[in-house]
């Protein structure tokens, strides 16, 4: 740790400074009070101050600071004090010679004095012109300029401000600020700084020496010692806050542990047509190796995991009534999706285009975690019941990287399935959800999304920006997505989502997403950010 910023007041080690400290103590013994400008005129002010601070912090001296203005002579003025003013030199020369040709004057008194002095001597009526020559008018003169400057040299001051300004203009004097100190003995004055201990030690306690020890004063204006602390990443801290909100509302976390998904789960099952712009090379990362997914099929491991996670819910809502479980039929699901796209089904006219199996089995980096929600909802169709799911995980877009876009970011997604859900209910739910982040005022704008109908963009009032800002997307999943899974027609499903990065950037005042996610993040940013308290501002 660099010296001086933390901990007790450092004792300066430089001998020069230490001498000043001792000199002050010595002189105070015989003279009180001291005036720094008189008693230590040659020692620079900062050094005097350092010495006095050091003593004052130990109550050995007390001092007062005074600011004064000092008038000092310039080099030109110094020569005037020594040799007389320019006009005096001219008058003197004329007096010596009786008569001087004007042309000759610079040779006798010098060019500068000739130029300035001649005019002033005329003005003072000391000399006059006689043809081409100068002759005497006054036999005796008083060199007031010199006298005034000599006075300033002694007193470093001049009370006549008009004259002072005139001298300043003539570049004969300058004004400077001088800080000086008046120093008196303090309550603990001594001729020497006593021996000090910096800290209480075990030895001192054991020996009892602490009782008589003279502790060095602590600098209460500095920070404490650096903790070398570990830290969690701010983005993950915000993520945890969101997870807590979801948990408090009874949401089950979805298994998002695969970055790669098939076109089927990522797009087709969500009723995103195969020619949709989102499926362009410019928007989606396709996988070159491996190339092709299997058709959708059972995944017993993930099923078992979710079964275990939902065991609590099943126990809580268990009843004597035997629930009908209808195992998933992946083949039928695949056929249904093809049909709803290509020919229309489930009361939808569909998109009516030749649906390609190759396209649906292409592998992509998932562009949204809604692909996982789809999988989870298909599972729910085995035993349709009220359910809530959420996930927060990484998604990928083949974007051109800039201050607000990265090729990867985190999507926060929530899904609520139940019978008889209404649109206003979704708004109400989102009001409570966002109020947990301190956003109380929500508005909803109709929007388009291939897999939700209605689709609503969520706008929140931003107090700082004083405008409505888009904070997320929401909607009810389309029947063309839900019914092919085998979910009953009267089961409706809310979906809503937002990015994790955007609220975090607003929270931490980060304007470039690359300063938040990725390898360019500053480690100071990670270690020095306050804990996240979403409900607070």
């Amino acid at each position, binding site marked *: 740790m660099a010296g001086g910023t933390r901990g007790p007041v450092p004792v300066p080690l430089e001998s020069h400074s230490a001498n000043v400290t001792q000199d002050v103590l010595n002189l105070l013994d015989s003279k009180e009070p001291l005036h720094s400008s008189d008693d230590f005129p040659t020692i620079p002010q900062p050094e005097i101050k350092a010495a006095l601070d050091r003593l004052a912090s130990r109550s050995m001296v007390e001092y007062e600071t005074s600011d004064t203005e000092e008038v000092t002579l310039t080099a030109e003025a110094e020569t005037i004090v020594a040799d007389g003013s320019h006009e005096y030199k001219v008058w003197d020369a004329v007096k010596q010679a009786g008569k001087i040709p004007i042309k000759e004057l610079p040779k006798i008194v010098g060019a500068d004095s000739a130029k300035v002095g001649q005019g002033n001597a005329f003005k003072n009526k000391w000399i006059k012109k006689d043809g081409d020559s100068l002759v005497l008018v006054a036999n005796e003169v008083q060199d007031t300029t010199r006298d005034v400057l000599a006075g300033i040299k002694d007193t470093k001051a001049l009370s006549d401000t008009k004259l002072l300004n005139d001298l300043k203009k003539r570049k004969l004097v300058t004004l400077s600020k001088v800080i000086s100190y008046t120093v008196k003995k303090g309550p603990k004055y001594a001729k020497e700084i006593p021996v000090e201990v910096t800290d209480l030690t075990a030895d001192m306690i054991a020996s009892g020496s602490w009782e008589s020890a003279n502790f060095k004063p602590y600098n209460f204006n500095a920070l404490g010692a650096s903790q070398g602390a570990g830290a969690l990443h701010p983005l993950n801290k915000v993520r945890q806050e969101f997870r807590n909100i979801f*948990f408090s509302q009874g949401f089950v976390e979805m298994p998002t542990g695969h970055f790669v998904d098939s076109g089927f789960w990522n797009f087709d099952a969500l009723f995103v047509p195969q020619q949709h712009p989102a499926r362009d090379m410019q928007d989606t990362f396709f*996988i070159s*190796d491996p190339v092709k997914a299997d058709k959708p099929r059972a995944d017993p491991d993930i099923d078992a995991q979710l079964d275990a996670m939902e065991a609590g819910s099943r126990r809580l809502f268990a009843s004597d009534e035997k629930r009908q479980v209808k195992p998933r039929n992946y083949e039928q699901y695949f056929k249904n999706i093809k049909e709803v796209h290509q020919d229309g089904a489930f009361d939808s006219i*569909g998109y009516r285009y030749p649906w390609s199996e190759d396209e649906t089995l292409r592998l992509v980096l998932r562009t949204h975690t809604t692909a996982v929600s789809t999988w989870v909802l298909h599972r729910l169709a085995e035993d349709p019941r009220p359910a809530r799911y959420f996930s927060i995980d990484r998604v990928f877009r083949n974007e051109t990287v800039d201050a607000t876009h990265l090729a990867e970011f985190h999507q926060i997604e929530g899904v609520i399935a139940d019978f008889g859900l*209404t*649109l206003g209910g979704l708004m109400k739910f989102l009001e409570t959800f966002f109020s947990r982040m301190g956003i109380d005022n929500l508005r909803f704008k109709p929007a388009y999304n291939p897999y939700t109908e209605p689709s609503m963009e969520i706008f929140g009032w931003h107090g700082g920006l004083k405008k409505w800002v888009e904070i997320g997307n929401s909607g009810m999943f389309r029947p063309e997505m839900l019914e092919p899974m085998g979910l009953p027609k009267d089961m409706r499903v809310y979906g809503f989502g937002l990015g994790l990065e955007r609220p975090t950037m607003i929270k931490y005042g980060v304007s470039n997403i690359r300063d938040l996610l990725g390898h360019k993040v500053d480690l*100071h940013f990670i270690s020095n950010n306050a804990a996240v308290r979403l409900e607070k501002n």
Partner: protein
Amino acid sequence: MPTIAVDKAALYAALEREYTTEEFDELCFEFGIELDEDTSQSTKPEDVGKPPQLKIEIPANRYDMLCFEGIALNLRVFLGREKLPEWKLSKPAGEPETLTISEETAKIRPLCSGVVLRGINFTQERYDSFIALQDKLHQNLARQRTLVSIGTHDLDTIKGPFTYEALAPEQIEFIPLNQKQKMNAKQLMEFYDKDKHLGRYLHIIRDSPVYPVIYDSNRTVLSLPPIINSNHSKITLNTKNVLIEITALDKTKVEIVNHMLVAMFSGYTESIEPLKIVSPHNNESREAPDLTPRLMQVEVDYLNQVTGLNYTPEEQSKLLERMGHTVTPSKSDSKLLDVSVPINRADILHQADIMEDFAIAYGFNNLPRVYPNKSSAVAAPLPINNLGDIVRFEAAAAGWSEVMPLILCSHEENFEWLNRKDDGKTAIKLANPKTAEYQLVRTSLLPGIMKTINSNRHHAVPIKVFEVSDVGFIDMSQERKTRNERHFAAAIMGKTSGFEQVHGLLDRIMLMLKAAFITRDDGLKNEKLEGYWIEEVDDPTFLQGHAAAIKINIAGKRHTIGVFGILHPSVLQKFELPYPVSTVEINLEVFL
């Protein structure tokens, strides 16, 4: 989402009132479009001194709002200024214009549709809008002209019947639009090869042995779809009668495009006349376009239930008219509405879409906000996330800082720079990255951590960082042929290697995961004995003699979960790190 610029004064005139920017913004918000910019408030040099424009973002499925006419019409209907017009075909004075499709076109672009607009009254603004709409349709619905493309012609310069054929490029000869010299289609491909605008469409037909072409009865070329029209039949401000031909691969979209052009521009014409399509080989002979509204039935209860309203069928019908639908309560079933969906509403697929229109007409923000769901679930975290959090908290408590680099990285960073070999069966590779930064899904957390340390080289050492996140692997046994794996990794860079630091961190994490330290001999002897040990390993990522494999017996099975060591100086050099670095990386999945 497409953004359409419209003349502000003209739009407000069409809406029969003036709006402040805020008022118009509010109208857009309620209707579900977005006012991007009012250029009267702009200080950009290109906007100053020009008639103010409104730049409006249109939802991607509202093809009927991609031009001034569509925006004005839909908003007028929404505001109750008019009812949506009924578009009807007129009987032509003589025989209808005919277009015969040759079977050869099946090889390249099999479908063609069209329409005749009689007595059109172009002004400069209407003409510009007509061209711009075609451009927007080409970009959006037509997927850069691949699926559908439009050609428009001055009918008085050509003479039917017309034919749509597919011929060898050398056989097709004409003067392209706005050119002076005649060329054949092969030469045309070269001529436009470097063209900024047309060059990007050439690939659609370039390599085909036959190119699509439309002729009139005098063998005058009308167009070479989907590239360019001929100069001969070019439409001008003076054009009175327009022939529109639309060629396509997609049967549905070709008619959607036809509907949009008719719905948007027939307001400026005297009559819409059909084009008789003769295409017996694929059963596509018909009169185009079919302008009959599509009839569908919608459940009254469904509209009420989802919106939480209690409206009578009559009230529902009235509201839906504001969205352009003609609705009458069904005569046969009081629980149903008969809805006729106008031709401009290609976005209506299901009664859910009608329900949304109902909600928009009522006003999303006026809907009763009542939460109807009374049942709740029992929350549960994903086990792997719980496990990851335990490790994250312990690593941070031990004084290490969490970093979050990207999942995607370059091949070099993942393999060569770590002195690792790609066996071609491990890493998931991307087909179409925009930069070499993103070539694959990382198989190790080390590259990202090294890059993070590199970006923070100016910091005081030691730098101690960690990450808990997923890596990805090819796994042919999975449906998606891949799987993620949750890893923990940490690195320390300092004046000395920090080997014992990462070792100590590993011990600490193992302790927190209840894995005991056992001797190698005991661990090998007895798989049932739970615990971990380390053994020296030869790994080119690390300095020889300073790397250890981490082994563990867990639930009666032996695993190698990772490795730690002092990074090889050649690795440091690749990641441009000035000081020694030690790292540890383990797979957390075995602790689930």
